[in-house]
């Protein structure tokens, strides 16, 4: 009974093609006229920049924002949404992309991976978004990746992550694991004379892969250093007293902590309560940004070292403009963490790439991305690598009691992104 209806009903497919055609018609017919806004430089004709039926009109282009604003991940993803909206409004104020104003459609992934996939599909198939800025956890990215590859969309993904992935349809604006980890380990070994490391993490792919890379680097690539312990805790774990005792026994030179989410707060509060003085015990983390410190409380984590590419306190002209702009839009009390800044890069990189390609078409954007540089990046300067990750510097910051970091070290050169690091697998 079901089988004889397998053929798609012709009407809907036909209707869709008709609708698509109709959407393209006015553009084709009205190429030269339609006066652009006075302030805006006239962009190239729509038919020229949009050969694949994206949501681009003569004066507007539609993009998608896909983050969790409800559910457990809303804690982390709020900052990314804010940064992306700020970037879009700034780009619009400067005249938009290829003479077109950016409109965005925001969808809620609700901290649920299938929902992310569903909404990604909606943004691509129904809304025809020219680019999507979004996702935060690796799981949500893994869930949407097949959707972006199948329907040929463009995702700008902001979070530092474990690597082991590369796609034509994704630009990774955060650091992959080797970029973030190796420089920090080298620094702590050289500056602190650290010999022994205790690796901690929440139990999922990012901390596990990151610690694997850290362990390989500690054991194989540095001299005289070793790992004296490695422990993982379920996501949302709130009791760390046992592992803290274990560390007290082992007395590692460096505690290397990759704990995420609500567990973070519990870990640092209990660490402090157990009398571990972070001014004497070196602790390095790659998972605590200024955003997380809001929940942890600056007094509980002061003295810890964090290794990532951006800190709000970074001194450079770009950041001196970015921080006040962010605060003006989202409130004086808001803070900016590494991922928030990386999310801010997304719309800008897309704009620069579209202007380089003179097109919104996904294939052309993907092809034009390598080599695109963004000199206005709050972190200083970034450039897209052929593997669609960013060249960026890695920095070490030390947490202050007011919830900010003092930047105490940065790599001299840009670190090359290497999502499939040989020798670290």
């Amino acid at each position, binding site marked *: 009974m079901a089988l004889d209806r397998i053929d798609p009903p012709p009407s809907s497919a036909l209707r869709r093609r008709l609708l698509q055609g109709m959407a393209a018609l006015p553009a084709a017919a009205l190429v030269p006229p339609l006066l652009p806004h006075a302030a805006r430089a006239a962009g190239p004709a729509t038919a020229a920049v949009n050969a694949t039926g994206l949501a681009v009109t003569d004066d507007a282009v539609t993009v998608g924002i896909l983050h969790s604003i*409800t559910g457990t991940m809303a804690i982390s993803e*709020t900052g990314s949404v804010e940064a992306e909206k700020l970037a879009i409004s700034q780009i619009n104020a400067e005249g938009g992309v290829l003479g077109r104003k950016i409109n965005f459609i925001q969808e809620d992934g609700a901290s649920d991976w299938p929902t992310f996939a569903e909404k990604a599909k909606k943004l691509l198939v129904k809304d025809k978004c020219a680019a999507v800025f979004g996702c935060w956890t690796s799981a949500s990215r893994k869930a949407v990746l097949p959707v972006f590859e199948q329907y040929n969309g463009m995702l700008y993904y902001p979070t530092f992550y474990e690597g082991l992935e590369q796609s034509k349809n994704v630009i990774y604006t955060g650091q992959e694991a080797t970029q973030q980890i190796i420089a920090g380990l080298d620094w702590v070994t050289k500056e602190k004379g650290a010999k022994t490391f205790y690796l901690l993490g929440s139990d999922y792919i990012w901390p596990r892969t990151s610690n694997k890379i850290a362990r390989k680097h500690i054991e194989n690539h540095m001299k005289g250093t070793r790992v004296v312990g490695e422990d*993982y805790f379920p996501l949302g774990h709130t*009791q760390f007293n046992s592992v803290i*005792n274990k560390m007290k026994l082992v007395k590692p030179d460096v505690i290397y902590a990759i704990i995420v989410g609500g567990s973070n707060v519990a870990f640092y509060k*209990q660490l402090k309560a157990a009398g571990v003085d972070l001014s004497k015990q070196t602790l390095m983390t790659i998972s605590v940004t200024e955003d997380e410190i809001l929940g942890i*409380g600056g*007094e509980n984590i002061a003295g810890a070292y964090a290794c990532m590419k951006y800190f709000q306190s970074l001194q450079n002209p770009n950041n001196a403009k970015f921080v006040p702009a962010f605060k003006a839009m989202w409130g004086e009390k808001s803070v900016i963490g590494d991922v928030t800044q990386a999310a801010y890069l997304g719309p800008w990189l897309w704009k620069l790439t579209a202007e380089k390609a003179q097109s919104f078409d996904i294939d052309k954007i993907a092809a034009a991305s390598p080599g695109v540089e963004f000199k206005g990046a709050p972190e200083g300067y970034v450039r897209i690598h052929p593997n669609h990750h960013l060249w960026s510097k890695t920095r070490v910051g030390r947490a202050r009691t007011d919830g900010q970091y003092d930047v105490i070290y940065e790599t001299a050169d840009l670190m090359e992104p290497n999502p499939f690091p040989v020798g670290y697998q």
Partner: protein
Amino acid sequence: MFMGYSLGDLGSILAMQGFAGLVLFSVFVLMALGLAIIFGQMGVINMAHGEFMILGAYVTFLCSRLFAAYLPGAFALYFFLAIILAFCASGLLGMAVEWALIRHLYKRPLDTLLATWGLSLILQQVYRSIFGAREVGVELPGWMMGSTHLTEQIEIPINGLIVMVLTTLITLAVYLLIFRAGWGRQVRAVTQNRAMASAVGIDTERVDRLTYGLGCGIAGIAGSAFTMIGSTSPTAGQLYIVDTFLVVVFGGAQSLIGTIASAFTISQARSTMEFFLSGSMAQVLVLLSVVGILMLRPQGLFVLKVRR
């Protein structure tokens, strides 16, 4: 793993580890007590338990802000007021919920579970709208953080001590209330035979409302206390709910003694195993043994005979 450490080192670690186990035990009891009272005495499962806890945490957060702004001199002591306020806020909300929702459902206990889950969704969203999606940092007075040195090597976390003292006091109070006071007799009478209790003149509706309020209030205290050891965010209640349910189920839901015994067993097992194994592995092993024991003894460790 004990090679190469002096006996003194090992001894002090053992002492600290024993203390950590006790702290975990207190945390579990505090989490589960409210739920166990409501479930044990009323047969109602309060799925919004975690959200009542977080209400307590947010009350503590507001107190800390108010004291920091208006009474900085008394900041060191705000926590005591916060605990009382958290109890009142969660308790009152609990009584309101009982009045508006639960009392219509006593004949359908399974439905209370669904209704309170709906309530938990609403509360989470309300917190998110009021306090924002991000975590809030609850600043604690300096004397509550840090540790005290018993000997040269043995350090005892002060927040752990506070949780232990608080749990002991509350457990004692609940014990006196339910097993020694007249009101407790009424509660137990209603538990054992509602119709008969009503027939001898006990106002069962009032008893129910106060019981529910008490359970929720204790959840509020727990939430307030957990600002010392955990995070405060709209969804943080979910972090505790799994452990809470496990403790109650494992203990045999009708019995407070069972709840305490089960909290002790699970916490000691977890704390010991976490020391020797990886945290994740320890959790899995503990959970598997809990399931295994539940399969052999599904009614839990302790069962109270109840006439239905």
